[in-house]
């Protein structure tokens, strides 16, 4: 028993409540998934391959980009570059959870991170800012989002006609609005606002002048630099929560 070296205690009840908390957003993810399933079969992917892709990759934006490059032949390196660039935000998201992930065993740590996606990460990251350690949302939220993505893809593959134009219903904005509300719900002091200003400017500059899909990482690192040089007075009050 190595309880002392990995102090994080998973609460099964909290996993369930976090799963339910992510259920509303998961319904929208079903609609997204359906849009992907439809787009993929229209590009000539077989239903099985489309479902396999959603199940294994679980990374919507990069899947859409990949099938845009689909044809009789697919260029391997460009597809890898695009998928890496779009998903490179996972690198930073995973890193930002490390202060919590170090408290679970490596097997659980790397198992959990397989379920990392924007929505459950945003909740965990914002909770952490408020001193709450919430890896349960990565597990519970990740599972429900993953299933929603697969079910949605399946619906789109077989009943795509129902989801012809999700954009007209504003469905493409669900994730953006969700992430924005998470950011605005967090701490807002001068230090954070300066970081956000720099992040916004850097992401826009990268979006305009740097290669495609680099803007998230560029903006996030620019914001992080503000934190690196400008420390908060009390470093962290998360410590007592962890105890």
């Amino acid at each position, binding site marked *: 028993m190595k309880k002392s070296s990995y102090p994080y205690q998973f609460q099964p009840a909290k996993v369930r409540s976090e799963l339910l908390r992510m259920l509303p957003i998961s319904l929208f993810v079903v609609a997204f998934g359906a849009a992907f399933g439809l787009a993929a079969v229209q590009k000539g992917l077989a239903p099985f391959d489309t479902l396999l*892709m959603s199940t294994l990759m679980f990374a919507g934006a990069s899947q859409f980009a*990949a099938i845009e490059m689909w044809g009789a032949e697919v260029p391997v390196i460009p597809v890898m570059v695009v998928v890496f660039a779009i998903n490179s*935000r996972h690198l930073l998201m995973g890193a930002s959870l490390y202060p919590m992930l170090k408290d679970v065993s490596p097997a659980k740590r790397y198992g959990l991170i*397989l379920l990392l996606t924007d929505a459950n990460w945003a909740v965990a990251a914002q909770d952490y800012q408020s001193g709450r350690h919430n890896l349960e949302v990565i597990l519970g939220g990740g599972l429900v989002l993953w299933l929603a993505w697969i079910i949605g893809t399946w619906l789109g593959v077989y009943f795509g006609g129902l989801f012809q134009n999700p954009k007209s219903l504003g469905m493409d904005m*669900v994730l953006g609005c969700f992430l924005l509300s998470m950011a605005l719900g967090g701490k807002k002091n001068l230090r954070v606002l300066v970081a956000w200003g720099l992040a916004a400017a850097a992401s826009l500059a990268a979006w305009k002048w740097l290669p495609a899909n680099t803007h998230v990482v560029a*903006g996030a690192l620019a914001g992080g630099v503000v934190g690196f040089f400008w420390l908060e007075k009390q470093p962290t009050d998360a410590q007592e929560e962890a105890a």
Partner: protein
Amino acid sequence: MTIETTTAGVLALIVIMTLVTLVTRLGGVFAMSFVRISPRVESFINTMASSVLIAIVVPMAFAGDAGALAALSVTTVVMLALKKPLPAISAGILAAALVRYLV
């Protein structure tokens, strides 16, 4: 180098893309296991985390149509007023649908 989209080719492509995605999910955590979490690193991580959200959303507003802009603006206003995500998100989506219906 290209891969033909035969049965085996498609499977190979899916495996390759899955591996690339896995590297992004595991890589950040793995790299951090070599870093000592000093208060400075902690501060970097925390400001970076909320900056990820800003860096996703701001270019989305600039690249998007009037509906996208309406969705994000309305979400901002409702979120700052009510401090509750669900009404803010719903209002934002509704705003996008409405603007796109009208324009």
